[in-house]
């Protein structure tokens, strides 16, 4: 028979207001195995914890039941108090008589018996609790950052500064990401490249940072502290050691392709660096357009390269490394507005997306920084900006607000006025949303000082007529149809998850929302953690966000990674699943359902009659198991037990509730 102590918390009036504490304590004394029962006003306070510790010692208790708030709040507090008295912390059981009882009832007559039933169940379960040990796991002191945009760069810099080695894996030939494509940044209008490139250079030069550009993560295995990752370094066909970045190859290269960096508004060569400040300044050859790779002739780059860095024989390489922590910072895409036929995007060169217009402003962009129409090279005098293209649109787009568009539209309207002083901007909006430090003031400046006409309403049709674009819309405040003969239209297309986000999520083992943005572990209290221990997220791969928010989140993710890497050993999960292999039929339904790939088939040998029988059964890797219990309920023969929540324990709880009624 166990020697169980029951401790009941008033939680001020949170519990005591609806649960009769005295009656509950009295009832607890009669539960099987209970040798001590007590109550206290705030059990989580130091005094309260002392009461538990002392009572364990004085009464020689070997099981403890606390009737308090949810175990999510204070289970750890009470486990520590039990451990203080020399008891294995897993011998303590929490009965949630606040969230599950006092908060949902008004009537003390109803709540008191329910609290007693919950405590009786907890005591019955506690009697079957076993001492558990959390495994101690090694930590590889190296971090992986996936994505080399501003989020990835910031996270890597912070981790590197704390003294740990970081690898940045970037799929493009250069780090820099979306921020490198931007002209100026709101609300201060500082030049995006001027604040980004120093960080890019710092990352490249940092002794603790390795850049793996033009590379992709191929496989992630293992678990927190010990992720085994395969990284595919795509062939550049240029030897980065020999290359000096002189630029002769791309000057001489005779073939061209559409520039990804310029959003397809300009051409780049087949051997290229994406932009002038690229880091590393080592070009890549794009096989799809290169004459040599397509037709087997040309080789001009090879002939012209002074240090002879061109190597057509280069192959993709697989790098295998172990990491303690991973930060996913894979960024965002812009929605392709061609799904909105009425806006005519893609049918006229002067109908642009916000990101494309950014490139028009940029000195190294397709127009050399001259704000002109792509159709005829003349400066636009009337520009219509349309917000929420694909955002806040249940019918055809995304339900969410893309968050950055109101601000960048105001920014672009201001920049336009500065570059083309006689230009007039019109903004169609649903709501102007400018929460943020200095944001509202910025947008008001656009409206009040830069002559930007804000019109609440939507556009129904855009079509070319003569040398302009007719924009037909409605002003929903005056209820009037509006027709503007515009020179240029800028569509604030929704911020969407990267096209390959579902694949990346699957590869890394983190889940996403219905829009394929990666999910944080808790929307408020665990904003950079994921449900997979050791994997953190930062930037717009989690949700649309602007640069300041991205950078904050990146630093937060870095701190979490640093915290992890700084540990000598990690404490694993004690409540893991365990297969009773003698009963397991080897159907492996559990393997299919396990979200943490913790279950693998294993062959065992059993004595059978005179010989030995080999058969396949399931095995749980306790280091990977997070104790979710999915396998235990899936198992048809009931041969999986979740430690701390075994089938016997759960049945004991049910019996304790049902049999006494």
């Amino acid at each position, binding site marked *: 028979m166990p020697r169980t102590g029951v401790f009941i918390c008033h939680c001020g009036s949170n519990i005591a207001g609806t649960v009769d504490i005295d009656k509950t304590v009295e009832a607890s004394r009669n539960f099987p195995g209970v040798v001590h029962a007590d109550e206290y006003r705030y059990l989580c306070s130091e005094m309260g914890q002392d009461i538990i510790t002392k009572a364990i010692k004085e009464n020689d208790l070997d099981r403890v039941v606390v009737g308090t708030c949810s175990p999510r709040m204070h289970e750890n507090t009470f486990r520590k108090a039990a451990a203080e008295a020399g008891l294995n912390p897993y011998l303590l059981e929490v009965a949630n008589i606040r969230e599950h009882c006092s908060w949902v009832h008004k009537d003390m007559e109803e709540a008191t018996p329910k609290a007693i039933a919950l405590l009786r169940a907890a005591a019955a379960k506690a009697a079957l609790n076993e001492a558990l040990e959390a495994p101690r796991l090694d930590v590889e002191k190296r971090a992986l950052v996936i994505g080399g945009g501003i989020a990835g760069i910031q996270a890597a810099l912070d981790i590197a500064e704390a003294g740990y080695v970081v690898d940045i894996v970037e799929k493009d030939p250069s780090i820099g990401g979306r921020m490198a494509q931007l002209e100026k940044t709101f609300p201060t209008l500082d030049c995006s490249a001027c604040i980004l490139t120093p960080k890019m250079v710092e990352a490249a030069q940092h002794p603790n940072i390795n850049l793996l550009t033009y590379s992709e993560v191929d496989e992630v295995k293992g678990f927190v502290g010990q992720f085994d990752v395969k990284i595919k370094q795509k062939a550049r066909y240029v030897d980065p050691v020999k290359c000096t970045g002189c630029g002769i190859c791309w000057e001489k290269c005779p073939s061209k392709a559409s520039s990804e960096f310029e959003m397809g508004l300009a051409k780049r060569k087949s051997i290229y660096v994406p932009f002038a400040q690229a880091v590393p300044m080592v070009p890549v050859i794009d096989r799809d357009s290169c004459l040599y790779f397509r037709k087997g002739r040309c080789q001009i780059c090879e002939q012209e390269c002074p240090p002879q860095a061109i190597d057509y024989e280069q192959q993709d390489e697989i790098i295998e490394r172990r990491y303690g922590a991973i930060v996913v910072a894979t960024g965002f895409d812009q929605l392709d507005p061609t799904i*909105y*036929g*009425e806006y005519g995007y893609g049918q006229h060169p002067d109908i642009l997306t916000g990101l494309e217009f950014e490139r028009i402003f940029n000195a190294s962009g397709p127009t050399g920084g001259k704000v002109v129409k792509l159709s005829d090279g003349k400066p636009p005098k009337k520009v219509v900006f349309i917000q929420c293209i694909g955002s806040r649109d249940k019918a055809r787009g995304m339900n969410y607000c893309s968050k950055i568009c109101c601000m960048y539209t105001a920014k672009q309207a201001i920049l336009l006025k500065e570059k083309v002083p006689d230009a007039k901007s019109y903004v169609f909006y649903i709501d102007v949303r400018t929460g943020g430090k200095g944001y509202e003031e910025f947008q008001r400046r656009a409206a009040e000082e830069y002559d930007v006409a804000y019109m609440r309403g939507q556009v129904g*049709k855009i*079509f*070319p*007529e003569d040398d302009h674009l*007719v924009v037909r819309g409605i002003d929903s405040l005056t209820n009037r149809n509006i027709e503007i003969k515009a020179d240029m239209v800028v569509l604030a297309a929704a911020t969407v998850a990267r096209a390959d986000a579902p694949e990346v999520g699957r590869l890394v083992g983190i889940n996403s929302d219905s829009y394929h943005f990666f999910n944080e572990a808790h929307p408020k209290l665990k904003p950079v953690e994921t449900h997979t221990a050791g994997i953190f997220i930062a930037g717009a791969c989690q949700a649309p966000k602007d640069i300041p928010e991205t950078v904050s989140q990146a630093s937060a993710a870095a701190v979490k990674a640093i915290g992890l890497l700084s540990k000598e050993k990690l404490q694993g999960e004690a409540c893991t699943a365990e297969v009773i292999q003698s009963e397991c039929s080897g159907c492996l339904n559990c393997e299919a359902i396990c979200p943490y790939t913790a279950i693998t088939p294993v062959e065992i040998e059993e004595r059978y009659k005179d010989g030995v029988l080999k058969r396949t059964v399931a095995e749980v890797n306790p280091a990977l198991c997070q104790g979710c219990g999915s396998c235990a309920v899936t198992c048809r023969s009931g041969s999986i037990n979740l430690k701390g929540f075994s089938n016997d324990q759960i049945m004991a709880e049910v019996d304790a509730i049902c049999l006494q009624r």
Partner: protein
Amino acid sequence: MRYRYFPGCTLKGQAKSMEDTTLAAAKAMGIELEELSEWQCCGAVYPLYEDELISLLSPVRTLAAAEGEPLVSLCAACHHVLKRAQELMQRNEDARKKVTDHLEVEYAGEGRVLHFLEVLRDDLGFDKLKEMVKKPLEGKKVAAYYGCLLLRPSKVMQFDDPENPTIMEDMIKALGAEVVKSPYRTECCGAYLSVTEEGVAADTVERILDSARRAGAEILVTACPLCRYNLENCADNEGKTPIKVYYFSEILAEAMGLPSESAEDQGTKEEVPQG
């Protein structure tokens, strides 16, 4: 290719030319259109309220009469009502039960409901149509006018991209004419406002015609009798370049070398009749 055919009232009167030319062209192309026996009204206007089931009795009876075989119509309004009634029968079990119980028919939303243009595009194919053309409409500048009924609501009609449809242009191209695209080809013609608010209809029609003129169109084709009526009767075309309005089937018949009003008008430059 064999289809059940639902004409609808207008095709036996005001829009007789659409039926005549379609049937003639279909015959020449080997498309058999078998008119439903004892057909009645299509329902005319699809009800605004989903529980206004009385308006669905007529179209559902028609749908059931097709006995699961592909059902073709020509009038944009008829096709619209039939297609939407079918979709409701597929989607709303309650409505389906009430209507079919009342009609004492078995119908669960089965069978293809097609506009004749869809037959040309999806079953015959415009490439095939091009081969069958006897007198290509070379040199004619033809713009399509879609109106609303064939295109919207797009999820139900499944006819074409509601903002950038191409089906009629593709047909025009197959017939050998020069396609002219006008931005107002999917705008409202004014519908029944031509009866109650003539000014409104006049404005919309004028805009449609002006925009077609600017784009260089000489001929406008439509599949909707009401659109054609408005386009021909609501606008003041005084002093403007004339634009002829035809049913799509008329230029189809013309290109097949069959008699049609558009063929008769060839070479003439008459003013659009005033209404």
